[in-house]
């Protein structure tokens, strides 16, 4: 099974600023996903990040707000831009390696 390291584990940010979340996998994977999870809620897919191509965003999420990089098959970043309190959530990186594996998440609080 893939092992995923996600950083930072938590952060408190000022509104209007940006935060970049990193996701490192211990093996090469084709598909990586970024999710958002509100407290007590299920997972909402933000986008699929594929190496060598633009990320594919789900309805309600746009590249200007959530730019994603995927420079190689073991690494991806998600940036939450121009943050507002509504962006306070847990952000999770996931990879497809026969099944979906998740990082431990980034708990973001915007004040």
């Amino acid at each position, binding site marked *: *099974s893939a092992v*995923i390291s*996600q950083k930072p584990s938590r952060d408190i940010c000022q509104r209007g600023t940006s935060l970049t979340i990193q996701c490192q996998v211990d093996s090469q994977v084709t*598909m990586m*996903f970024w999710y958002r999870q509100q407290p*007590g*809620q*299920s*997972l909402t*897919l933000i986008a*699929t990040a594929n190496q060598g191509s633009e990320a594919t965003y789900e309805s309600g999420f746009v590249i200007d707000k959530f730019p994603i990089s995927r420079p190689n098959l073991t690494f991806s970043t998600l940036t939450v831009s121009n943050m507002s309190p509504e962006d306070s959530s847990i952000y*999770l990186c*996931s990879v497809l390696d*026969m*099944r*979906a*594996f*998740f*990082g*431990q*998440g980034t*708990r973001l609080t915007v004040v």
Partner: protein
Amino acid sequence: QKEVEQDPGPLSVPEGAIVSLNCTYSNSAFQYFMWYRQYSRKGPELLMYTYSSGNKEDGRFTAQVDKSSKYISLFIRDSQPSDSATYLCAAWGNFNKFYFGSGTKLNVKP
């Protein structure tokens, strides 16, 4: 209608009870089904993974898929307080993404 529906609970049972967690799905193209356990402040952890219909057992956990009724279940035998967590079902088809249920919060009382 959501692609995968799951009763959010919460579900509270005494230690040692058999727990049944259930989901339904709407798309017959789904072929792979998974159950995840998520402890508070942690990422989801893969528990069980099944392909198509049938049962799969792993220790105290049994995953069951009935494709004819589009029903997936997770059974936990001899439940323990350490099983207290949120359980998420998920399905995967030919759409290059997973569809998750809303999660069922389980509390096993000592």
